[in-house]
């Protein structure tokens, strides 16, 4: 599959949001973060597409849906270098870079088995820390660091 072909696929939705440059192994995490498995909108997902910068990348196209920046920024937990294209009438009308949010509430799970959030009905809350280009999550409650993003419910 050529780069040109994927570009064609990207522009193939009329209106909506295209998330590009997602590392192939992170695509399902991004789906979880945006809760796309419960989406009513048409969603197209491409995995293991060739990419010059990432080797293999993933791409997600969501028709007729436009996310708040706050929602998009959460993607940075799994795919900090993802790009966002806003499509209107088959044209890219806006390209967005995502910014890592300072705090993450309610979407990630704490990896500490003794953390109160894993035993009581407490919404998780983390502050984000970037260490050697990796995003880590510092738990507001148990004060431990979660090294890998784990979606809630996993």
């Amino acid at each position, binding site marked *: 599959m050529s780069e040109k072909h994927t570009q064609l696929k990207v522009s193939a939705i009329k209106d909506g949001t295209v998330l590009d440059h997602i590392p192939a192994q992170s695509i399902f995490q991004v789906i979880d973060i945006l809760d796309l498995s419960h989406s009513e909108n048409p969603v197209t997902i491409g995995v293991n597409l060739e990419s010059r910068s990432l080797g293999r990348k993933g791409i997600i196209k969501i028709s007729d849906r436009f996310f708040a920046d706050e929602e998009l920024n959460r993607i940075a937990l799994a795919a900090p270098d993802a790009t966002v294209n806003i499509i209107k009438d088959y044209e890219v009308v806006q390209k967005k870079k995502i910014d890592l949010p300072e705090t993450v509430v309610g979407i990630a799970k704490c990896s500490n088995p003794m953390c*109160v959030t894993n035993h*009581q009905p*407490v919404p998780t809350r983390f502050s984000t820390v970037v260490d050697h280009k990796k995003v880590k999550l510092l*738990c507001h*409650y*148990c*004060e*431990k*660091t979660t090294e890998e993003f784990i979606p809630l419910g996993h």
Partner: protein
Amino acid sequence: MHKSLISIHDFSKEEILHILEVAREMEATGSSKLLDGKVVACLFFEPSTRTRLSFETAANRLGARVIGFSDVANTSISKGETLKDTIKMVSNYVDIIVMRHPLEGAARYASEVCDIPVVNAGDGANQHPSQTLLDLYTILQTQGRLEDVTINMVGDLKYGRTVHSLLQAMSHFNPRFFFTAPDELRLPAEYKAFMDARGIPYKESRSLQEHLCDCDILYMTRVQQERFSDPMEYEKVKDVYRLERSMLQGVRDNMKILHPLPRVGEIAADVDDTPYAYYYKQAQNGMYVRMAIIAYLLGYK
């Protein structure tokens, strides 16, 4: 929201020094009626007799009444009540909650669901800030200062939360550290990074004897069996250090031995009668510091 004490990071350097000053007043005054008519809840979701007695005595010596429980066996928690409901209910009755809980972050969460002050008396392996404050008070009392003190921390530096909290709190005061531990229990890298970032000098050693004579504070800790998942690893290191009277030849005159207690084998009984042993007084200081914490959080000091 009221001020709570959940983590030692919740108090600024100025607040820490204020608490220590109030604790000094408490030690000088002894008992008072400062909190006459107040009620303190001591909620111990896991047993800790030493800490509970210290807090309860502190409340009593300020003239407050104490309610609470010392384990969860006969409470509605054993029926499955959520922590939130227990805290909400108790907070309607009392003026301040002191709590110990096996889950990490439980005290932080409790402080967010009620509108009275919460004191964390230990949340699992996470924080135990009143211990840290009493350690600071004892260092100040024995050395006459907190600045430029050399502390030799010995034993379980990997899992020992008192060690981690104390070194973070001491970072305000230009300290030097020796870290004496077997390879299995060395200080985790994150704390070394913490000190490197602040330019705090430290040296690691495996030998208890090596830095006995060039420290002001010898901070001994117990190797806690409950922190080990592998019993073999515990057996290998449990008796690694044992301080005896004969080893104290040539130590600094001002050197004091601290220990958060309980001890098992790491300090021999013959050390107790030396001028360097200070751990019993340290435990007593805990009461004064807890009096200061309760009075401060209730707005009386």
